[in-house]
């Protein structure tokens, strides 16, 4: 935590792709144990923000501070070791590996210094049970359906034993009851002290889960507030309806 008691603090972050400004001077923060939402229309820069936080991309301007430590230039694997874990919106499984082996990668790397090595497989199986994969651990991940791949994305991100979990549209394509199941998982995770950043298009899930929400539109932060405040915000409505 830094001086203001923030777990994660992003200040004045700008990310360009060539001449295109994907994120323009965006600041946001995450408190310890907080459940944060990040919403906005397609192409507004949500995933780019996650890429800059996780280190998959490097921002040109601004800083990212985690637990008081500047991590702006740190490679992604170091950030994962520190406890920042993310899922990918477009699933990126390790295709030649089984479901269980997919789980063991973050355990043997990101969480290596934090978790008793002898318990890896048990812990992996526990997490797999959460998403209903307990009987499919040996199945090859290359043949999974899109929906299953999303579940694996979430499970694998959890296997890194994160302090901050960033879930990038983990619920897309899930049925209504599956969405509730995932929300349940995320609530439990949060109770154990994990802060969560949820990117989601399913408003019902975001409004139910998040304590505070940021809204991005075309690379700009246009609103911040509680779910109630966001729902009543005319700027947000305009951004979504594309007026």
């Amino acid at each position, binding site marked *: 935590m830094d001086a203001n008691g923030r777990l994660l603090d992003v200040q004045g972050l700008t990310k360009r792709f060539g001449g295109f400004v994907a994120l323009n001077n965006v600041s946001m923060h995450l408190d310890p144990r907080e459940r944060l939402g990040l919403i906005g229309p397609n192409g507004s820069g949500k995933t780019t923000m996650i890429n800059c936080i996780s280190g*998959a991309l490097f921002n040109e301007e601004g800083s990212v501070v985690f637990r008081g430590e500047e991590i702006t230039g740190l490679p992604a*694997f170091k950030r994962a070791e520190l406890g920042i874990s993310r899922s990918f919106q477009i699933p990126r499984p390790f295709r030649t590996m089984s479901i269980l082996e997919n789980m063991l990668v973050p355990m043997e790397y990101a969480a290596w210094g934090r978790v008793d090595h002898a318990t890896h497989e048990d812990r992996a199986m526990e997490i797999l049970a959460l998403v209903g994969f307990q009987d499919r651990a040996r199945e090859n991940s290359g043949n999974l359906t899109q929906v299953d791949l999303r579940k694996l994305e979430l499970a694998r991100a959890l296997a890194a034993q994160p302090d901050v979990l960033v879930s990038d549209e983990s619920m897309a394509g899930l049925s209504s009851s599956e969405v509730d199941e995932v929300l349940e998982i995320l609530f439990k995770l949060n109770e154990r002290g994990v802060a969560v950043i949820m990117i989601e298009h399913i408003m019902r899930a975001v409004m139910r889960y998040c304590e505070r929400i940021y809204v991005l539109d075309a690379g700009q932060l246009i609103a911040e507030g509680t779910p109630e405040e966001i729902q009543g915000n005319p700027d947000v409505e305009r951004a979504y309806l594309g007026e």
Partner: protein
Amino acid sequence: MKVSGFWIGIVLMLAAGFVLAGVADNQFLFFAGYVILQGLIMAVAWNVLGGFTGYVNFGSAGFFAIGAYTAIALHQFAELPLLVLIVIAGIVCGLIGLGTGYLTLRLRGVYFAIATLAMAIVFESLITNWDYVGGSAGAYVITPAEVPFFDSFIEMMFILMLVLSLICVAVSRYLSMSRMGRGLASIRDDETAAECMGVPTLRLKLISTTVMGVMMGVAGAPFPFFVTYINPLSAFDLLIAVNAIAMPMIGGTAVWFGPVIGALLLGTIQQIVTVTISSELNILIVGAVLIAFVALAPRGIVGLFQDFARKRREGGK
């Protein structure tokens, strides 16, 4: 500590080599055995980077030749023992491998493969213009007529290659079965995801390219002494580079014993063809077998067996 079947196998292979050296008189056996084992080291080396890590190296012959020419250059400079030459050649090629690793920072997939090919071509023209090691005319090596402990020089070279092969196989097996092996596989499957799961991708890739370089340098260093005459054409031989790729592809690239199976099989076929028909046919044979495998069994012989075993399990209820 439990002694695993693997180590028993290693000791058995070594013992078999010594027994063969003791009983066999036919020098051709050692000659052929040396060539097969040389291919085996190259295949195992290629597979560390190509199979485990997913970076295809087209420049294997370059590493091999640099190993051979490092040995020649040192041999011209001072008559060092062969083992010392092998170690230094391994270090030199390891460093070149390390440099190759930095290429992976910017180059993926086919671009990396082309860069390694270009690198081999650059090395070849450097060597061709380096008079100290004979330039394009090549260099001769005088090998001792008698060696201690062995009946002949070629017999000693065969045992040397056998020991080197077994070491390389053990290293490759360790790499693939350890935690590092999972890290390498995650890079092969998805580098971005691997990095975000905490895998230090650059460090692992550098280890992978360095190990590959060392092994190929080690395979190349004894070569001039084996053939007693070396020139750029024979050191940068296309067949060496093609075999290094074909043997793992035929055996199976995902596991450590894939390239071993491929090398023993293809290497033996090539030796038989060399004796019965002509060595000119070898490159044609590799080409044909490789195409057949890429088209029909992309996961190699190991993959075929795995599929077969799975079908039996599922079919047998």
